[in-house]
């Protein structure tokens, strides 16, 4: 009885709570506060924040695999057995044991797994969610399909030139990659080229793309990258306006744009197929993201699978969002997140947004130099994606300059172009980095 009580006490969170886990729970609460009170992308940040708290419940091991749980929570006997199997001498160090496990041959790993199961340890539920939702690649792609089913390419088709704005805004991604490797070269941080690429994608201002890329290139940084991406997307109305004001004159902001032509349903059906075929011909590494995106859009526009399109936009995307958010939260473990790298990621992320915004605006001004059909440069900033927030910012600033200057539909063109642009950038980076590795 006393032994049992003692065991129970040893198991309470109070006894086990390391400072890091306590801090991470506070960070999870902060994310919930931002999501609920400040409306920071709540659909994602509520599950992510909550998942982050759950992942840091001390002694619960919800975010760990069975083997990790055996190493962290197992008694001396279990750890000694694990150490023997893994031929590790200092079995006090959880880190050493896990590193040895990662290096071990498949047959040894299987025996270790079996031992963990026999000792009563199993995968935490968040770990299982992560395996199914993110490690398989499924959840970001399913969400991208749903986003495709929600996207109207009409404004883009009415004015295809706005694709250039979506292209220019992706410079934020690549400049940030350079910034990250620069920090590494300067010895401030320790980012690999794959880390740098994953961090850069924050500048794509597109959540599923960022999660997809970092799950492939830098799974350890996934939590910080996703949090940065969604937070800055929520902060777009604060980040973008000063940059837009600084780079444009009052006259430019007043430029009126001609009414968009009406786009036929046939064009809307054919466009995602054209995009898909171009991807197939030119950039197969972007095929998962853009393929699912186009699939969703075809379901939306073709008019004969209303049932499927509606489910993709509602039940399916909602279910996937819940598990994606919890899974991202499972990566907010203290030893991963409470790292100087996270500060670097947050810093680089906001730079990426700023550069992307600026390049979008500057590209619009450049296009005005060479073309006689003028573009209001305020819609350039919408090229970072952050749909539909960035387009609304463009519209609001247009109305500030001239109360009759409605830019919303014009800004939707570069806005969805930015989604395509960052998916293309994601494909390029995955392709290049995996060839380097």
């Amino acid at each position, binding site marked *: 009885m006393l032994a049992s009580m003692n065991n129970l006490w040893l198991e309470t969170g109070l006894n086990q709570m390391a400072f890091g886990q306590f801090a991470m729970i506070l960070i999870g609460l902060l994310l919930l506060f931002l999501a609920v009170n400040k409306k920071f992308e709540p659909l994602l940040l509520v599950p992510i924040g909550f998942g982050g708290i759950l992942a840091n419940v001390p002694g619960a091991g919800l975010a760990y695999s069975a083997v990790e749980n055996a190493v962290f929570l197992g008694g001396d006997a279990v750890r000694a057995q694990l150490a023997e199997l893994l031929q590790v001498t200092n079995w006090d160090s959880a880190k050493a044991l896990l590193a040895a496990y990662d290096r071990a041959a498949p047959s040894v790993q299987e025996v270790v797994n079996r031992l963990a199961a026999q000792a009563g340890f199993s995968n935490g539920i968040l770990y299982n969610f992560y395996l199914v939702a993110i490690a398989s690649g499924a959840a970001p792609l399913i969400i991208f399909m749903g986003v495709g089913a929600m996207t109207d390419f009409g404004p*883009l*088709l009415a004015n*295809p*030139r706005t*694709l*250039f704005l*979506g*292209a220019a805004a*992706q*410079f934020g*991604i*690549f*400049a940030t*990659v*350079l910034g*990250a*490797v*620069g920090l*590494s*070269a300067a010895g401030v941080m320790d980012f*690999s*080229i794959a880390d*740098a*690429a994953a961090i850069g994608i924050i500048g794509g201002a597109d959540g599923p793309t960022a999660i997809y890329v970092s799950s492939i290139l830098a799974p350890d940084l996934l939590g910080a990258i996703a949090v940065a991406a969604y937070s800055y997307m929520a902060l777009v109305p604060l980040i973008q306006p000063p940059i837009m004001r600084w780079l444009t004159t009052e006259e430019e902001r007043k430029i009126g744009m001609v009414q968009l032509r*009406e*786009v*036929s*349903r*046939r*064009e809307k059906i*054919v*466009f995602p197929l*054209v*995009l898909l075929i*171009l991807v197939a011909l*030119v*950039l197969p590494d972007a095929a998962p993201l853009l393929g699912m995106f186009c699939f969703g859009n075809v379901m939306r526009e073709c008019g004969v699978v209303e*049932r499927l399109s509606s489910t993709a936009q509602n039940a399916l995307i909602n279910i996937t969002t819940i598990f994606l958010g919890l899974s991202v939260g499972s990566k907010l473990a203290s030893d991963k997140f409470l790292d100087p790298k996270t500060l670097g990621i947050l810093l680089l992320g906001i730079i990426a947004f700023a550069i992307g915004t600026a390049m979008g605006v500057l590209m619009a001004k450049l296009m005005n130099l060479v073309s006689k059909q003028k573009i209001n440069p305020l819609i350039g900033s919408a090229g970072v994606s952050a749909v539909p927030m960035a387009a609304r910012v463009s519209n609001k600033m247009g109305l500030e300059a001239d109360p009759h200057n409605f830019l919303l539909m014009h800004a939707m063109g570069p806005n969805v*172009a930015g989604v*395509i*642009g960052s998916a*293309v*950038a994601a494909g*390029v*980076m995955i392709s*290049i*980095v995996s060839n*380097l590795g």
Partner: protein
Amino acid sequence: MQNELISQGINLMLLGMGVVFVFLTLLVFATSFMSALVMRYFPEPHPEPPVKAPPISSATTQPDARLLNILKAAVEEHRSKHNQR
């Protein structure tokens, strides 16, 4: 090592931006070509109205008529959702 990292980064940036621009430029041309083709050879028989506007015939005499049309549509959609196979 660090120089290699930087050169990899520069590589990634140049190549990446290059591909993004080339791809989206191709897409601009492909899209414009597709739109021209569709508009010339496959024009839509009757361009559908942007939103199913309810007939607003006697809207002034019966102020609820429009609302009821909308509701009728909502109910029908609701039903069809439950009947479809």
